[in-house]
C-alpha cells in the first residue's frame, strides 16, 4: 500500500512541473510584461532597456523560468501592477473567503447528496426516487450561473432574505460573534446555490452505486445468512456504496474552482475567483497567472488526496 501511495505522490511531480510551464507560457503570452504598467511613458527608452536587463527580462526563457520558479517556491509571485503590492499579499487577503465558501459548499453538497442518493437508490422506481431523479435532471441541465442569478433574484432581491453582495456587513468588528454570523449569513446563499447544482452528480453517482450494489451476489448471500432487509442495507449496501464517496471531495475541488469564479462574480463575494476576473479586466496579469498556478496546485493535490483515500478504504487496492 505504501508503495502505491508513494508512487501516486511521485506522479504529481511531473504534473506540477507541467502546470508551472503552462502557467509560465501563459504569463509570457500575456500582452505586455512586468514593466508595461509600471513605467511612465516619458522615461527614456535606454533606461527602460537597462531596467529590463536588471530584472532579467532579456535572459533566455529557461533562465527566466528558473528565476520565476525560485521566486514562486519562496512565495514570491511578483508585484501587482494595479494595487502596487506583492501578489502574495493580495491573494492572502482573499484566500480565506474562498476557503470558507468552498468548505460551506462541500458540506452542503454532502448534506444534500447523501440522504437524497440513499433514498433514491434504496427506493428506486418509486415516486420519491422519480422526484429526486427529476431534480438531478434539472440540476444537471441548469448552468450554475443561471441558477445562481435566479437564486439571487428571488432570495436576494425579491424576498430580500439574504444580502446581495459582499462577504460581511460593513462596519462589523472582526473577531466578534456578530462578525462571524455576518460572514456566515453572506456565505449561505452563494454556497447553497453552488451546492444545489454541484451535488446532483454525487446524488446520481450514489444512486447508481446503490442500485448496482443491491444486485450484487453478496447481497443475496447476506439475505441467505438471515440478515434483515435493514441490516442488508446498512451493513452491506450502504457501506460498500458510501466508501468511494468518502474520497470524492478531492476531485470536487476542480469543480469548486470553476464554480467559485461564477458564484463570487455573481454574488459580489470578494474571494480569489472574483480577484481572478478583476485581475483580467484590470490587465493585472501577474495576479492572474499566480491564481491559475495556485488553483491548479489545489486541484492536483485534491486529486492526490482522493486517490490516496480511495486506496485506503478499498482493500482491493490497498493490499497489493
Amino acid at each position, binding site marked *: 500500500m505504501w508503495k502505491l501511495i508513494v508512487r501516486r505522490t511521485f506522479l504529481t511531480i511531473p504534473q506540477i512541473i507541467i502546470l508551472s510551464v503552462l502557467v509560465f507560457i501563459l504569463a509570457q503570452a500575456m500582452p505586455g510584461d512586468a514593466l508595461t504598467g509600471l513605467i511612465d511613458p516619458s522615461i527614456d527608452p535606454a533606461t527602460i532597456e537597462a531596467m529590463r536587463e536588471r530584472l532579467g527580462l532579456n535572459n533566455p526563457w529557461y533562465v527566466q523560468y528558473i528565476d520565476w520558479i525560485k521566486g514562486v517556491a519562496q512565495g514570491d509571485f511578483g508585484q501587482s501592477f494595479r494595487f502596487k503590492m506583492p501578489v502574495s499579499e493580495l491573494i492572502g487577503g482573499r484566500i480565506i473567503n474562498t476557503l470558507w465558501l468552498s468548505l460551506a459548499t462541500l458540506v452542503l453538497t454532502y448534506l444534500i447528496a447523501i440522504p437524497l442518493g440513499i433514498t433514491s437508490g434504496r427506493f428506486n422506481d418509486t415516486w420519491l426516487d422519480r422526484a429526486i431523479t427529476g431534480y438531478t435532471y434539472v440540476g444537471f441541465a441548469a448552468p450554475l450561473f443561471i441558477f445562481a442569478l435566479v437564486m439571487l433574484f428571488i432570495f436576494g432581491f425579491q424576498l430580500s432574505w439574504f444580502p446581495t453582495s459582499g462577504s460581511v456587513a460593513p462596519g462589523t468588528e472582526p473577531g466578534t460573534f456578530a462578525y462571524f454570523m455576518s460572514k456566515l449569513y453572506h456565505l449561505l446563499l452563494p454556497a447553497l446555490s453552488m451546492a444545489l447544482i454541484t451535488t446532483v452528480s454525487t446524488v446520481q453517482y450514489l444512486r447508481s452505486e446503490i442500485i448496482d450494489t443491491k444486485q450484487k451476489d*453478496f447481497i443475496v448471500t447476506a439475505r441467505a445468512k438471515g*440478515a434483515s432487509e435493514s441490516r442488508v442495507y446498512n451493513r452491506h449496501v450502504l457501506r460498500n456504496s458510501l466508501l468511494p464517496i468518502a474520497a470524492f471531495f478531492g476531485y470536487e475541488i476542480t469543480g469548486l474552482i470553476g464554480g467559485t469564479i461564477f458564484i463570487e462574480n455573481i454574488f459580489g463575494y470578494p474571494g480569489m475567483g472574483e480577484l481572478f476576473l478583476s485581475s483580467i479586466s484590470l490587465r493585472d496579469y501577474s495576479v492572474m497567472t499566480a491564481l491559475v498556478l495556485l488553483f491548479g496546485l489545489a486541484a492536483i493535490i485534491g486529486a492526490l488526496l482522493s486517490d490516496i483515500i480511495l486506496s485506503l478504504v478499498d*482493500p482491493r487496492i490497498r493490499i497489493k
Partner: protein
Amino acid sequence: MNNVLLDIKNLKTSFRIKDDYYAAVDNVSLTVRKNEVLAIVGESGSGKSAFAFSIMGLHTRAKIEGEINYKGNNLVEANANQLKKLRGSEMGMIFQDALSALNPLMVVGAQIDEAIFLHNPKSSKSMRKKQVISLLNMVGIPRPEKTYFQYPHELSGGMRQRIVIAMAISNQPEILIADEPTTALDVTIQSQILDLIKELKEKIHAGIVLITHDLGVVAEMADRVAVMYAGQIVEIADVYTLMENPQHPYTRSLLNSIPTLSEVKADLHVIQGVVPSLQNLPRTGCRFASRIPWIEESAHETSPELHEISPGHFVRCTCYKDFYFPEQAKEERNYVAN
C-alpha cells in the same frame, strides 16, 4: 415418512417479463429428506436455480405459488421475519461464484461471524471468533487465524468456496442448498470441495439439495436425482436407477451426449434444437417433444403427468415408452443425412 424435511407441492415460480408472468419453475413437487443428497440436474434455463432460490425465499421479484412445507409451516406464505429466522440457521446456501458471493470490503472472518451473530445475537464476540476459527478448521482452511483477517480477493478460488461453505454451515443447518458449488472450479479443487461437502454431511446430517448440470457430480454425490427440463421435473429416481436405467428421453439423451473416460464413442449423441427461452417455453403437451421430432405425436400425452414406473421412479409423459435414438435406426428410417 418421518425423515421428510421439506415437502414441496406444486411449486410455481413466475417472473414478470413485460406484462406477463412466465413460470420458470412449473408445478414442481418434491421431498427433501434428512441425511440425503437430492440432486437437481438440468441445463441452463431448466429452472433449477430458480427452484433453489424459491426454497430459500431469495427471489425479490417473483410470484411464488404452491407449498413448501417445512416443520408444519408453508414457507410460501411465511412472512419476511419468519423466513429471516430460518435462512442461515436451519437453511444454509452455497453459491456458485464464491468471489462475488462474498463482500469484497469485509474480511472473511467477519462475514462468517455475521452469519453466527444474526442467529445468536447474545453470543459474545470472543465466543464467535472461536466458533469461526473452528468452522474454518472444519472446512479445511490451513491457517484459520490468518485467513480470518483476509479479504476475499486474497484467497484462491477453492479457499473462497470453503469460506462460503463455512458460512452456510455455521449454524448447523438442517437443509443445505448447494447451487452449482463447483462449476467455477478446476477439477482437482472440485473433487476436494465435493469430498468436503460429503464429509460435512456425515457430521451435520443435513438434507442437501445439490443443483448441478454435471452428471458426473451427480453420480459421485447424489442419493436421489430429479432431472429438470423447461421448468418441470421430467424424471426422479434414486441415483443408481437413474444412471443405469434412465427412462425419460431427455435423461437418456443427456447421458448419451457426454463423453466419458470409460468408453470412447465414435460419435456423441446430439440433442436437436435448443433449450427454449422462458418466454418461448411450450406450455402445453410434452415440453421435450419438439426436440425429438422423430417420435410420433401420438406417443406423447396431451397433458403429461409423472408416472411411477417402479417404486420411487417417476417419469413424465408416456413418450419414454416409444423413444429410441435416431442413430440406432439410421438405415431403416434414413432420417439423418450423412
